[in-house]
């Protein structure tokens, strides 16, 4: 089913003051590329309503077993639990910072579960749910937030690249990787995650250009969570983001980002396009950042509580749970077992993080170059001698 998200948009921004209010009326001239009609703008693919009702979409269908559905539920619950644990660990001083995915579980689990093992993921810094789908141990994600490393996993073990903090830059890496896949003659696909704010970066535009020109097998997955720190999406664009793709010559689609089934179906279709040589697709997952930007942020300075409340009614986990229970795909016992599992996960994360040792001082000088560098060798030796001078002093 295709629904209008107008209501959602109204509640998110309180209407009236949006930059788009000033927007030019759609051009009437024929030779001018017309701004799409309002109705088309706000279409978004949905397969599961906020009320947990299963609906059909003419273009995207999905047929999952009860087990698969339960699996998606479990993924989302565990991801949320992990995320909450990390937030707590930050408050307790175990992490320096945490970027919560709260509210974006469906976008991440839906898209993450659409991937094949041989596909490759280029995340931002918030894709904890996608990392989960890839089998990256969640405790590995915490190293950079604790300050013990800048990325604690081997990207090639799970085909999940390191978190990238410089906004937008990973979209080019994804495109280049996809060009490599293409050269190899493989039928794998690549997926690049980025946010609504990131859509403004020149790098993202360049990745659209390169992927279109080379027809690279890449899916651009934009989680439009309505905010880039304190800036609403209207500060980045005056038309829906999914439309950006069209001007580069590939399709864009807006999906209900809080609907795990729709995210799964739409991403799968986009990955299929990539695999079969049809090139890039832009998926805009229309979702919401329920929490602060990071634990350093204070959203009360720039957004109203009512906005968050309105989005709570569209919670991705809630609607799947309702659906599972209503349809008898899961019972309370199953939900309880997931709850238990999530508690165990929380406990394990807590324990692992608390036991995470600080790196050795000399790690400063490691892995800067693969083939070594004379200056690094010199500085390493000097620093070692300097440190030893204290030990000597202490010993004397």
């Amino acid at each position, binding site marked *: 089913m295709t629904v209008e998200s107008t209501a959602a948009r109204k509640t998110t921004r309180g209407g009236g003051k949006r930059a788009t209010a000033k927007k030019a009326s759609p051009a009437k001239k024929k030779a001018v590329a017309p701004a799409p009609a309002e109705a088309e703008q706000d279409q978004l693919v949905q397969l599961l309503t906020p009320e947990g009702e299963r609906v059909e979409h003419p273009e995207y269908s999905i047929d999952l077993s009860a087990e698969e559905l339960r699996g998606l539920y479990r993924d989302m619950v565990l991801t949320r639990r992990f995320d909450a644990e990390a937030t707590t660990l930050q408050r307790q001083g175990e992490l*320096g*910072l945490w970027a919560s995915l709260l509210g974006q579980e469906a976008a991440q689990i839906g898209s993450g579960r659409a991937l094949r093992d041989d596909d490759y993921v280029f995340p931002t810094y918030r894709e904890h749910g996608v990392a989960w789908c890839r089998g990256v141990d969640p405790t590995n994600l915490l*190293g*950079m*937030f*604790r*300050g*013990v*490393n*800048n990325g604690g996993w081997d990207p090639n073990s799970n085909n999940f690249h390191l978190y990238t*903090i*410089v*906004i937008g830059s990973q979209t080019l890496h994804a495109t280049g990787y996809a060009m490599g896949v293409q050269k190899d003659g493989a039928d794998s696909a690549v997926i690049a995650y980025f946010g609504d*704010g*990131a859509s*403004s*970066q*020149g*790098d993202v535009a360049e990745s659209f250009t390169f992927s279109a020109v080379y027809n690279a097998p890449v899916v651009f997955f934009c989680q439009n969570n309505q905010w*880039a*720190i*304190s*800036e609403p999406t209207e*500060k*980045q664009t005056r038309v829906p983001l999914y439309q950006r793709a069209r001007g580069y010559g590939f399709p864009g689609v807006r999906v209900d980002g809080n609907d795990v089934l729709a995210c799964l179906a739409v991403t799968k279709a986009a990955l299929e396009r990539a695999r079969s040589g049809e090139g890039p697709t832009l998926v805009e997952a229309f979702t919401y950042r329920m929490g602060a930007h990071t634990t*350093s*942020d204070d959203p009360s*300075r*720039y957004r109203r509580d009512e906005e968050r409340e309105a989005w709570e009614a569209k919670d991705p986990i809630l609607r799947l749970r309702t659906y599972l229970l209503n349809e008898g795909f899961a019972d309370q016992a199953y939900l309880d077992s997931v709850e238990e599992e999530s508690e165990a996960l929380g406990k394990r994360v807590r324990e692992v993080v608390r036991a995470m040792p*600080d*790196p050795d*001082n000399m*790690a*400063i*000088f490691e892995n*800067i170059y693969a083939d070594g*560098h004379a*200056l*690094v060798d010199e*500085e390493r030796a000097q*620093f070692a001698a*300097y440190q030893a*001078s*204290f030990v000597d002093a202490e010993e004397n």
Partner: protein
Amino acid sequence: MAVFEKITLSKAINESLRASMEADPKVLVMGEDVGKLGGVFRVTDGLQKDFGEERVIDTPLAESGIVGTAIGMALRGYRPVVEIQFDGFVFPAYDQIVTQLAKMHARALGKVKVPVVIRIPYGGGIGAVEHHSESPEALFAHVAGLKCVSPSNASDAYWMMRQAIESDDPVIYFEPKRRYHDKGRLDTEAIPDPLHKARVAQTGTDLTLAAYGPMVKVCLDAAKVAAEEGKSVEVLDLRTISPIDFDAVQASVERTRRLVIVHEAPVFLGTGSEIAARITERCFYHLEAPVLRVGGFHAPYPPSRLEDEYLPGLDRVLDAVDRALAY
């Protein structure tokens, strides 16, 4: 509101922006999250409320766009003060800064001026994640057409920002983010030092420590410890990185005959290399010891649990003082 007895460095910048905007309607503030949020460090707190969205502009998330449009506004007669959210995020704007902002006045044979100030919270010591703790000043100071400054205290922060905004040249204003909360005295009716002059922050006779921004405090602390050990250390707050006030460094070194330069940025091709080279040339027969440098290593800024080792601290500065005095 002439005198603030205890104002934080960040609040001093805020006051400076406010005063500049009041004094000149052409002054604009722009950047990511500078509006309602007041910037991630709250340096622009309250400005949008008071000066409106037309003068305090939340921009799209695109640094090249921010600097590029600021250049355009400057060409139209505005004086934009641009915030880069963190040091590590200035690089998407590097092309606009280096090829356009720096060169436009010369390209036009002086016919246009491009008075853009770029504020960059820089340096480490705040336990942040990657890209949030870097010291890229040498990458700007090397480029002709730019001026670079970095205050170490609230009063300088205020005055240097006012002067930077008044300057008809592009100024990169490096804010020592780990000193944002340090408090100092500010008299907004005092007569400020010129923007491009260093200042002796502590007199001494045996050796000169030269630093700017966040490292001035470390050097003052080191001088104190050294004094307890009977060594008289002069501390020079350089304040300006392009141009560097070599005359002041030379004058100090001619007295003390020894120089140690301290900065957070990597030593290799850091500003200390230029100071060492030039002062050695100027003071060849005065120097009792080679100019020594204390700074970051030739390594990416490390994860925060290692930053205390990476950053020049009291011990490493004192070690260099000892080594210089040992000549």
